[in-house]
């Protein structure tokens, strides 16, 4: 691959890293990352991946930008209120790095469409930046069944956590959390609130995991749950075992096709 002068200058600060170099930059330019949710977590993840020169970034979100999003979803601006989030996100990315191919999917993921979305560009890595448990379990199950690596994350109040699944290397999200909680059984950001920076901190870690996976360098958060508490500034890592009884990746899996746990319909609030 031949780099233009503009590319060499744009990416110079990472090309000089021995872990990146021109080979790594080539990998970034060829890589395809799907970001499901363009909210608090997806916004910084999308922007950093685009800035690094990830060649194809897919954005999945059915929502339109609301004023209450802007406290944390920094990919959207005041003038974007009312716009589909995927369109607003695409515009921000193209301002930042016009070389990135941004593929937009203005829909919620469901059992009916997630496999097609993942296969659409044959995405290499998936970022779960959703806020709800049905979507998180669906993304997990789809990635396990389709053998795709993904980064899981969640944030609430001053807390966040994230883990990475790589097929064949450690537990999946369902190993840890087994089954979605009933609606409204555990507090959500909408009810409990969230400090805006939590999406920045945790979503940026998700982007770092994607970049490391693409490069094939470093140690991913496989078999480890990273938790962060901004009120004490404590990061902790909890070693996670695979659960032999996991319904999707265990020894006798019972989930062999995707199911919707309770899914919002596009346009429904």
């Amino acid at each position, binding site marked *: 691959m031949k780099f233009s002068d503009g590319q060499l200058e744009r990416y110079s600060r990472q090309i000089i890293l021995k872990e990146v170099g021109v080979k790594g930059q080539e990998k970034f330019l060829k890589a395809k990352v799907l970001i499901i949710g363009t909210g608090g977590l997806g916004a910084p993840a999308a922007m950093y991946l685009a800035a690094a020169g990830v060649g194809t970034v897919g954005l999945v979100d059915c929502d339109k930008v609301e004023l209450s999003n802007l406290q944390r*979803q920094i990919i959207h601006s005041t003038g974007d209120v009312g716009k589909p989030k995927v369109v607003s996100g695409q515009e921000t990315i193209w301002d930042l790095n016009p070389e990135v191919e941004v593929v937009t999917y203005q829909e919620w993921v469901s059992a009916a469409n997630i496999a097609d979305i993942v296969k659409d560009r044959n995405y290499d890595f998936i970022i779960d930046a959703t806020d709800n448990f049905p979507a*998180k379990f669906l993304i997990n199950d789809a990635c396990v069944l389709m053998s795709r690596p993904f980064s899981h994350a969640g*944030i609430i109040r001053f807390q966040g956590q994230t883990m990475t699944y790589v097929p064949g290397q450690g537990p999946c999200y369902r190993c840890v959390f087994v089954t979605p909680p009933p609606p409204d059984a*555990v507090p959500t950001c909408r009810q409990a609130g969230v400090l805006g920076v939590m999406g920045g901190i945790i979503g940026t870690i998700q982007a770092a995991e994607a970049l490391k996976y693409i490069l094939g360098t470093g140690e991913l958060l496989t078999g480890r749950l990273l938790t962060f508490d901004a009120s004490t500034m*404590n990061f902790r890592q*909890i070693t*996670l*075992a695979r659960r032999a009884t996991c319904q999707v990746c265990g020894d006798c899996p019972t989930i062999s096709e995707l199911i919707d746990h309770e899914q919002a319909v596009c346009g429904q609030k």
Partner: protein
Amino acid sequence: MHIMVNGKEVELSQSVSIRQLIVSQEVATPEYVTVQLNEEFVSAAELDGTLLNDGDVVEFLYFMGGGQAKS
């Protein structure tokens, strides 16, 4: 005896079950917490019968949503 709970040392005057620890530690949403004992998952059915020993390491893992703001 001392055990570790989410990275913090907790002193117990006697051995208790994980279920009792969940109550005494005032674990939020106890029905939906994932429990690990010494890096192994403990199923919900085992919480009453699993007694804690000195030096045990317990992790309570919580559901966290967040990210995109969909209801």
